[in-house]
């Protein structure tokens, strides 16, 4: 049963072929056996998970269950979970037990899903490799010497390694899509405002968005049906009806116009990634689509604009971590200034501190216009590029990342790391929905295809992704978890 899609598990649970308790126990056992080599979970909630599974089984027996009832899942450790430690991958919150559930968490609970635990992530969602976590890096299950991508590295790894049936992630500059690409799973970022950010620890408030990480577009549709919707507790949540995202999955792609941005096929794109993307595009032509060359002329500025806007917003959002009300507080502060400075300097890792400093600088007197306001103007140009493109095409397709998963420790230069998100970042600046689906494997490493649609066109996006998955099998490939890194604990003891 482990490793099946939500769609398949849901049917099996409804038919009582397996119980949620059995399923949950199986996943917990697998986490126990496998996660030591991956480090994808920060917290595993065994007791709570089994209690939730029992409750789900009661509902299933009474025929009262909906499609996600009893399905074991994981939440990125950025979502507040009541009574469960919520660390955001940081020392600053390593002792923080949330007094409330994020709206996203509440929604999955109400749907009867079982929370197996909280997944590892780049600290405060700042990173593209899951190497900045206070709790250690996550290893890519396809090759444990490589990164899984970030910041939702733990969630993508857990799904890829079948440690859960589905997971939540967040995406500010590519943090769902890029790890999905590196781990060979489906990662979906909804339009800004589609999913509530209440209880989702804030990084950059005008860019952050929660979304599903799972095995297929069909699974993502089921998850999005639960996640999406207006939440009055999130003032940026959009008041727009949530369609049944499954209903249109099988719409024909005949006449679909696919835009191929010149800027996403320029230098830096690895040959094997380009090949996989071009083959995917041929597949789409067979399904009735037409390919149209388009321009996103300001794409080269997206990383620059992002690295002003995101750090600036982060510097504001992270100013709440002061050791006063919750979270880490340094030992024996001599005065308030000392408490603030040492709490923050000891509680935050280097990348977080770097971004706070950049953001503070960009917002400081004398620099605000040249940096922050300038970046906001560039942002409008970037959004306009997409709006112009969508006059001629229905979706935009290209690679998610210039290459496959790189080695742990390979990118020591922050700017090199920032350029990892060259194809994904503009989508966040524009607030558009985007998805990464598996589209190839090169040297045993997954390649992701990114599809982007217009504002609130999630249904179209899922339809386009689903049709590809009906005619190809990249999304069914799994990493081989029997390599040397996955030796059983007992043999390690013998060596020690």
């Amino acid at each position, binding site marked *: 049963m482990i490793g099946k899609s939500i769609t398949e598990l849901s049917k099996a649970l409804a038919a009582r072929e397996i119980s949620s308790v059995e399923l949950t126990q199986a996943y917990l056992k697998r986490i126990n056996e496998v996660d030591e080599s991956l480090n994808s979970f920060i917290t595993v909630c065994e007791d709570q998970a089994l209690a939730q599974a029992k409750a789900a089984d009661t509902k299933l027996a009474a025929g009262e269950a909906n499609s996600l009832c009893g399905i074991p899942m994981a939440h990125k450790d950025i979502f507040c979970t009541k009574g469960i430690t919520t660390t955001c991958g940081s020392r600053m919150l390593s*002792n*923080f*037990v949330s*007094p409330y559930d994020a709206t996203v968490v509440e929604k999955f609970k109400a749907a009867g899903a079982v929370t197996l635990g909280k997944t590892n992530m780049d600290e405060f969602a700042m990173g593209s490799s899951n190497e900045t976590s206070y709790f250690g890096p996550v290893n890519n299950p396809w090759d444990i010497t490589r990164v899984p991508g970030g910041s939702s590295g733990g969630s993508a790894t857990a799904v890829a390694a079948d440690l859960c049936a589905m997971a939540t992630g967040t995406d500010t500059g590519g943090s769902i899509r890029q790890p999905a690409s590196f781990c060979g799973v489906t990662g979906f970022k909804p*339009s*800004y*405002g589609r999913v509530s950010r209440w209880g989702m620890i804030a990084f950059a408030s*005008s860019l952050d968005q929660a979304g599903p990480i799972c095995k297929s577009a069909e699974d993502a549709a089921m998850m999005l049906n639960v996640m999406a919707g207006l939440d*009055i507790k999130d*003032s*940026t949540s*959009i008041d727009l009806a949530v369609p049944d995202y499954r209903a249109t999955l099988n719409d024909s792609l005949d006449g679909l116009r696919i835009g191929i941005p010149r800027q996403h096929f320029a230098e830096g794109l690895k040959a094997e990634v380009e090949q996989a993307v071009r083959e995917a595009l041929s597949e789409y032509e067979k399904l009735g689509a037409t390919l149209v060359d388009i321009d996103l002329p*300001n794409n*080269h*500025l997206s990383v*620059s604009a992002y*690295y*002003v806007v995101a750090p600036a917003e982060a*510097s504001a959002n992270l*100013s709440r971590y002061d*050791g*006063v*009300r*919750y*979270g880490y*507080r340094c030992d024996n*502060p001599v*005065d*308030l200034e000392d*408490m*603030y*400075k*040492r709490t*923050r*300097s000891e509680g935050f890792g280097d990348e977080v*501190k*770097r971004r*706070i*400093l*950049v953001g*503070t*600088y960009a917002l*400081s007197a004398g620099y605000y216009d*040249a*940096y922050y*306001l*300038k*970046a*906001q*103007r*560039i*942002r*409008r*140009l970037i*959004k306009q590029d997409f709006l112009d493109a969508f006059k001629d095409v229905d979706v935009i397709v290209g690679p998610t990342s210039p290459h496959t998963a790189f080695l742990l420790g390979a990118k020591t230069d922050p700017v090199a790391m*920032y350029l990892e998100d060259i194809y994904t970042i503009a989508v966040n*600046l524009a*607030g*558009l929905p985007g998805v990464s689906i598996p589209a190839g494997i090169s040297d045993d490493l997954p390649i992701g295809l990114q599809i982007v649609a217009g*504002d609130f066109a999630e249904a179209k996006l899922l339809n386009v992704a689903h049709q590809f998955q009906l005619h190809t099998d990249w999304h069914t490939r799994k990493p081989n978890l029997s390599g040397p890194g996955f030796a059983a604990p007992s043999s390690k003891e013998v060596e020690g």
Partner: protein
Amino acid sequence: MALDKSEVEKIAQLARLHVSDSEADEVASRISEILALIDKMQAVDTQNVEPLSHPLDSVQRLRPDEVNETDRRDELQENSPNTEAGLYLVPKVID
């Protein structure tokens, strides 16, 4: 635009972060690299472009001024490092 040590100290102070003397040079050079990346924006003319702060140019939703929250102070203070009678205890602020 390159940053020097004294500017790093100024922004560190604003951000209430402690940057040691030995760290300051490295921090300055790292941030200068990021600023070089950001400076690419300056090449583009944006004189007649309105800033975009929200992807849909949405405005803050308002609601009627009615009390709809309950007092959850005890519950919310369970995570606090140091409290007394509902107050947060910190090192002395006023001399």
